[in-house]
């Protein structure tokens, strides 16, 4: 049985924050190709506060922790990313308000809630070339493990591969949402910054947990 604790969730979020801060310039450069070059700066602005306030964050439950993250991201991140990422964290947090541990089915439900929230917030759907096109296949894949007991490391490995594949697959698409979409056909051939960020974070989470396990 794969059980996720508050500490695990915190490590995931911490890794996302470190990844956002380390890749600020890189993520902005990706956004320069078809967007307005602020994606890295925006994400970093929010995760910097997460990082700075780390010790004081509400840890009364997994859900409350995620809701606090949501409030920071929403509050501090401008552009599309604030509402999109903030909504994702919020919806996942609401589903886990009273939880102290999570099973895979819980994780799937939280991810689905986040995805639905993002769709409702920004009007994007699968295929519009946004971070949803990483999150949806990752969630679909995770669901396959609900009834198929698998080692946590292997699950993480698989999800990382799915996310990285999404960069490849979607690069050839035309963006339909966000500022990228104004570029129309010119967005074809460039990877979507949001998808790259999700994949980069998933790869980092994978490495972090592997490292933690080995120690």
């Amino acid at each position: 049985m794969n059980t996720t604790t508050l500490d695990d969730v915190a490590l995931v979020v911490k890794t996302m924050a470190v990844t956002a801060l380390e890749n600020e310039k890189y993520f902005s450069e990706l956004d320069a190709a078809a967007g307005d070059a602020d994606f890295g700066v925006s994400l970093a602005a929010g995760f910097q506060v997460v990082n700075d306030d780390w010790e004081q964050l509400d840890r009364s439950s997994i859900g409350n922790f995620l809701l606090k993250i949501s409030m920071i991201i929403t509050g501090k991140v401008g552009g599309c990313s604030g509402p999109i990422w903030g909504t994702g964290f919020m919806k996942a947090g609401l589903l886990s308000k009273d939880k102290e541990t999570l099973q895979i089915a819980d994780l799937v439900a939280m991810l689905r809630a986040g995805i639905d929230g993002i769709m409702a917030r920004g009007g994007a759907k699968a295929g519009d070339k946004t971070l949803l096109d990483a999150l949806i296949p990752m969630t679909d894949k995770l669901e396959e493990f609900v009834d198929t007991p698998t080692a946590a490391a292997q699950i993480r490995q698989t999800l990382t591969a799915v996310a990285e594949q999404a960069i490849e697959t979607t690069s050839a698409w035309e963006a339909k949402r966000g500022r990228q979409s104004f570029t129309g056909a010119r967005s074809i051939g460039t990877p979507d910054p949001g998808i790259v960020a999700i994949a980069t974070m998933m790869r980092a989470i994978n490495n972090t947990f592997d490292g933690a396990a080995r120690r």
Partner: protein
Amino acid sequence: MKKFVNDPHDFVPQMLEGLVLANAGKLEYVPQYNLICRSDMPSDDKVSIIQGSGSGHEPAHVMAVGRGMLDAAVPGGVFSAPPVEYCLECIKLMNSARGVLYLVNNYQGDRMNWDMARELAEAEGINVGVVVIDDDVAVKDSTHTVGRRGVAGNFFVIKACAAAAEQGKSLEELVALGEKVNAAVRSMGVALSSCTPPAKGEPIFAIGADEIEMGVGIHGEPGRSREKLQPADAIIEQLFQAVHDDLPFNSGDRVALMINGLGGTPVSELYLLYRKAALLCEEHGLTVVNNYVGEYCTSLEMAGASLTLLKLDQELEALLAAPAEVPIRVF
């Protein structure tokens, strides 16, 4: 990057500090939320009119704060919509018994942040109205796109709603008025050069020495087509035709005509463009009642211009004529 800038991260705050230093007693700056507001507002006698969008479009919208225009503006970073928390604080700070109206340009980032701020403000019992501005005809408006962008037509929505607010109109009336102005205003722009966001340090798009971007967006988004450089009159003909035919405008209409500079084009060239635009209005039977030549909504130092037409009626003519006072002035 050749700009007057210190640390690029300080670009927006230092511009705002300069703005309030130059308008002591009239404007106030709340650094925590990067917010500029009138010192004498809010008042329970009128609906508060606010706006927040990315920076880099000055004088829009921070320099449009003043009597008869915005009560407050909350600019994000350069070309970045302000975060929800900032929008929410702006609404709360300008909370009035008559309500708060925010005017939002149709970009996803702007709209989502303001939508969330509105939900939160309404949860706190604040009466919030919204008008979405999308006057840029360069972008096709269809249900499976994010829709047209809000550009220089923004000025007219602010001017009309703010003047009506000073006259004591209700929030509902102002929302209806804002939607009416937005429905009657159309714009399109053209770029001769790119522009460089301070934090990026490099031009946001590449453009050849003999090329222009027809229908450019105010964040350097591509427009309808990349074309060869043409005589000024030929360029204005294209802008005019696109704007004119979109509404469409009809012979006999009374209009306001704006030639807006995108930041790097001198006012001499803007008047040269105005000349042709005014002649085209005459040819098409449009009477220019009000005209606007200068910078209203820019893209940093981009060389270029946009043309805006607003269809007038008696109500709008009176609102445009109402007094207003903003930091951008000659005297």
